[in-house]
């Protein structure tokens, strides 16, 4: 275990990875760096993101590179600086906001769902903002520092919600989010920051917002997942005897319905896996789709693997049993296959 900000996380932050590989965190920083270098309209707002580099070190070095007019430390005022980002976007900027923890998105909620989400539809005024949200558990963060709040925004017209599950998408989705003329919530997973490594994405590469990706092909069952679920599902698939397809949603809202449906058409069995508690997150949206549109293709009832309906608990024993794991994913797929 190393530390991520003031929390714990798996991963080796000191050592170098394989040549050419970078961490998920570095991919995010690179995306910010490249976007800022290419486009003067891009600037950063957030608490402690300047000299300190942000609670998780994501913006480390950016102040030195781009100066105080582009890396702006804010007072503790999430409603205020999300609103300010919206105002800056109104007059042509491309602000990127960092929330210190995704959990604090409850504070600027109104600014997001009222101003950011509804303005284009009712006026034609674009609001191109990106809100970066360090999300998720497995870091002993407890009820206020380990949540997966994306579900509150899934379904809200006018917002886009992306949840990168790979190094490539951490870079590519962030670049696409910053390009995008609509407000994008970017949920970057804290536990992956330093634990996930991958080949350094090509400078300027984009992961388009919208399309899901078949992360692994298979014909026996589909696991639909996103964010931290991607590595879990892929690891489980490797260990399963069956031939499991993994759909990484990448963009959770709006949902790429066709990719989900066509995978199920092929496999006839589906497990939805998410880190958010079972009655929040994206599960409702996905299972609603499956219920209505996959009826004729299913050989078993769709399954859901997600934590129980509680906040994220703090104690290691509790958190470890709360979070979906490779083992529980394997077991869930096996139950699905046995139906």
């Amino acid at each position, binding site marked *: 275990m190393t530390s991520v900000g003031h929390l714990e996380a798996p991963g080796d932050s000191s050592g170098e990875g394989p040549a050419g590989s970078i961490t998920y965190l570095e991919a995010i920083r690179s995306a910010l760096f490249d976007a800022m270098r290419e486009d003067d309209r891009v600037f950063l707002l957030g608490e402690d993101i300047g000299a300190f580099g942000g609670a998780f070190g994501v913006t480390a070095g950016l102040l030195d590179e781009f100066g105080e007019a582009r890396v*702006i430390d804010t007072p503790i005022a999430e409603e205020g600086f999300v*609103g*300010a980002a919206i105002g800056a976007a109104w007059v042509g900027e491309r602000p990127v906001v960092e929330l210190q923890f995704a959990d604090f998105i409850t504070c600027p909620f109104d*600014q997001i769902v*009222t101003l950011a989400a509804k303005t284009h539809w009712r006026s034609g005024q674009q609001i191109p903002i990106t809100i970066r949200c360090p999300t998720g558990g497995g870091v002993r963060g407890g009820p206020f520092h380990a949540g997966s709040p994306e579900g509150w925004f899934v379904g809200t017209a006018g917002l886009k919600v992306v949840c990168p599950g790979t190094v490539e998408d951490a870079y590519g989705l962030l670049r696409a989010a910053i390009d995008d003329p609509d407000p994008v919530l970017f949920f970057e997973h804290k536990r992956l920051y330093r634990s996930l490594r991958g080949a350094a994405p090509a400078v300027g590469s984009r992961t388009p917002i*919208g399309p899901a990706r078949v992360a692994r092909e298979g014909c026996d069952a589909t696991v639909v997942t996103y964010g931290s679920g991607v590595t879990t599902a892929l690891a489980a698939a490797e260990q399963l005897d069956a031939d499991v397809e993994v759909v990484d949603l990448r963009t959770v809202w709006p949902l790429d319905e066709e990719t989900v449906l066509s995978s199920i058409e092929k496999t006839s069995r589906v497990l939805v896996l998410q880190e958010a508690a079972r009655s929040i997150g994206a599960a409702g949206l996905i299972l609603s789709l499956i219920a209505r549109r996959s009826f004729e293709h299913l050989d078993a009832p769709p399954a859901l693997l997600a934590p129980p309906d509680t906040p994220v608990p703090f104690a290691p024993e509790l958190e470890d049993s709360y979070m979906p794991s490779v083992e529980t994913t394997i077991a869930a797929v096996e139950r699905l296959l046995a139906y």
Partner: protein
Amino acid sequence: MPIEPCAETPSIAPAERLALFRLVLLQRIFEDRVLALYRQGRVPGSVYTGRGQEAVAAGAGLALGPDDVVAPLNRELATHFARGATTADVFRNFFGKATSPTFGRDGNMHFGQPEHGVFPLVSMLGDLVPVVAGAALAFKRRGERRVAMTFLGEGAFSVGDTHEGLNLAAVWQVPAVFVIQSNRFSYSTPVNRQMVNTNIAQRIYGGWSIPAERVDGTDALAVLDTVRAAVERARNGNGPQAVEALSVRMHGHAAHDDARYMPAGMREEFAERFDPIERLAARLALDGHGAEAIAGVREAAADEVADGLAEAEQAPAADPATIEHGVYAAPPFPDT
């Protein structure tokens, strides 16, 4: 009591005095017309007016330069006109026409025209305070000599977003101007149930270190003069500025509200002496404009309203088939 003419205010040039008169008239006549239409069942939803506050809307609106931006609320119809909205534009919004500034998706004063540098109002009070702080931040960052303005009532002043937005503007020292519409009430709630010290200018300076002045909000010349000075201070790098404009909300909160909670006679007495339209008319007369000239401006404004109404009535109705268009500027799945 006779009407009190606006103070002389020689700093405001003759053409601007007439421009102000047109603006306050447009707001008054438009609102009277739309209220009548509402009572006839020809306007859906609700109607909010700014009767008694037209001088603030007009004066603050004219105080802005062409590249400045503004986020008005419900009481600032004249600000929209100052920025270039036509009476037809606004009528279309009240009717919910397909070609309204909100495409029929929103009504009454809930609109804004980005092409005129006007942010579309959202109802949630306080939300727009940080928005203009952010626009002003962008201007500062880019070295542009532009200013961002918004309005807020006493009630909106109690909202958390207002605090956060004022504080950001102050800490960042950005060219934002906050115009407080102190009209004594928030819906039915008198200002002394909204806050302890009802001198909001004092509060803004004491709480947020933003320079703040009070102005008579029924004197359009004084408002223009004071707000313009604030706008120019902001433009010249002196950080955010505030102006508290004192007036009275002469109507209820919205068309349905007869405001019987207001002290008896308050509005009548106010109207007699401080009606902002008549105060300006009286000053124009003192300026040397003959009765006929003044009547001419009144008539022209009435015509502008009538013409806008006629035009708006012809506009096509909104089409339900297009309801999902524009939810996204870049729809991720355009075909579905």
